[in-house]
């Protein structure tokens, strides 16, 4: 039985990754799961300098999911390289570093800085965080801006580049095509869906940021639809995510066209979710005599 997948020349032992921002750099969850069993660790977004993030409350629960407006708090690239990449050094899993910025130059600085870091297998460019006022999502909601930043990053990047797309757009296919045309090696989607919750007892927004990104099982059908549309619009690999809680959910994304999948908010519900997804995929393959996970990709036409 083969669970190995390949994206832009990088081999992954299985298609299970984590959603950026839901897993830190793996330190906290290494108390619960064996990181060596993951296809890849996708790190929390890192910028050229430390970002303090948004005021609290930053998280709130909604039916079947949650809203977050962390605002990409991160220690900046210097601490990240020294501490987080060192931590991941001895694990036998791929490392995908999520990169955020407020200007194209911010992104380029981080991408260039990571170029010589041998531990970094791929870069994921966050142009879709809904919780940061400047930059970030501005690049992810306009196809010309997305084309521009993607092509500029591709000029300096030494590792393959994944563009992480926002679902908060009119046509995900158009955005996927723009990323591909600009040279992206892969795309990942969906980032969170912009939402809002009001505390009717206190007559206040539940989040200090007023809006937040929705994640969790409730968004899965939206994510599956978008992964299906995007993967049929482009020829580059798609990493699918949005509410994945089980091996069956992962299989659904793969059938929609995803080459790999990521577990996001469900890590917060159950710190062992990633392992259950890895095992669940294998048990599905045994049940239906699937020899190679790659045979399932996009099998629903």
């Amino acid at each position: 039985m083969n669970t190995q997948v390949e994206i832009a020349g990088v081999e992954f032992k299985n298609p299970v990754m984590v959603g950026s921002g839901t897993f830190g750099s793996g330190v906290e969850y290494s108390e619960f799961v064996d990181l060596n069993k993951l296809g890849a660790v996708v790190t929390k977004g890192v910028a050229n300098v430390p970002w303090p993030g948004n005021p609290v409350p930053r998280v709130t629960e909604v039916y079947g999911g949650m809203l977050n407006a962390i605002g990409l708090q991160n220690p900046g690239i210097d601490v990240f390289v020294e501490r987080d990449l060192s931590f991941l050094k001895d694990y036998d899993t791929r490392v995908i570093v999520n990169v955020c910025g407020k200007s194209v130059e911010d992104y380029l600085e981080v991408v260039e800085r990571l170029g010589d870091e041998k531990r970094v297998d791929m870069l994921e460019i966050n142009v879709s965080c809904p919780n940061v006022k400047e930059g970030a999502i501005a690049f992810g909601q306009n196809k010309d801006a997305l084309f521009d930043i993607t092509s500029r990053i591709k000029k300096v990047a030494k590792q393959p580049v994944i563009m992480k797309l926002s679902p908060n757009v009119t046509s995900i296919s158009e955005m996927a095509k723009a990323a591909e045309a600009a040279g992206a090696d892969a795309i990942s989607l969906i980032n969170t869906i912009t939402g809002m919750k009001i505390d009717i007892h206190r007559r206040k927004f539940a989040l200090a940021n007023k809006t937040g990104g929705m994640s969790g099982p409730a968004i899965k059908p939206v994510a599956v639809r978008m992964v299906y549309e995007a993967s049929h619009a482009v020829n580059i690999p798609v990493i699918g995510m949005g509410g994945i809680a089980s091996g069956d959910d992962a299989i659904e994304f793969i059938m929609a066209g995803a080459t790999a999948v990521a577990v996001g908010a469900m890590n917060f519900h159950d710190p062992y979710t990633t392992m259950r997804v890895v095992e669940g995929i294998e048990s599905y393959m045994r049940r239906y005599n699937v020899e190679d996970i790659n045979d399932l990709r996009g099998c629903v036409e």
Partner: protein
Amino acid sequence: MAKKAKIEARVLSQSILAEGIYDMWLETELAMDAHPGQFVGVYPANKATLLPRPISICEVDKEKSALRLVYRVVGSGTAEFALYQPGDIIMILGILGNGFPLEAAEGKRAVVMGGGIGVPPLLQTAKELSQKGTEVTAVMGYRNEETFLSDDFKKYAKMVIATEDGSVGTKGNVIDAMNENSVECDVILACGPMPMLRAIKQYAQDKGIKAYISLEERMACGVGACLGCVCKTKEADHHSHVHNARICTDGPVFDAEDVEI
């Protein structure tokens, strides 16, 4: 520190202490590693809910491998907890957080201070300090005559009570009760609503004594990964280097001098 885990726990008992305040004992191996001031995440069974509810540890019985949680019903999750019966199996995540630094209070004139649903975690704190031979004064603030847990505190501490309506003890807050009873101390360990914690921070600063305060915030992961539950710190925090410590893992207990509240 012991490894964290999400595991099953068995409800041993459940009772009502005051209006909306519930008292539940759980049998769980996590009890063996529990320290006063730490907390657990309790998962509602309702599939529409995702996140564990952070609930402080009120008391620990290591012989019975049991934890006592005293909680207030505030939403649908805690409303579900209130229905649990002895024998029910629930899922919990723990042990979480740092807990109170008992060594900072041992052998000194220690005051444990709680307000409202901040009262429970001070019980195990008072118990362990008292077992180590430290004389403890418990200064607890309540809304009214429903002074839950006050009989338990009397086993381990000299008890001073403040109530908002003046029905029991000093009318006013915990600081009023300290003053009215001329309580002198070297260190305060506290948990309660933010206005109370701000007053305690100021009180400690004015008196030149140490105060350790337990903070709360909306949490998601509970283990330090999501950066949801941060508080402003005086110095750059060690994790993100941006003056934002994680309440769930760097706290919930902080030296009052170190946090901007």
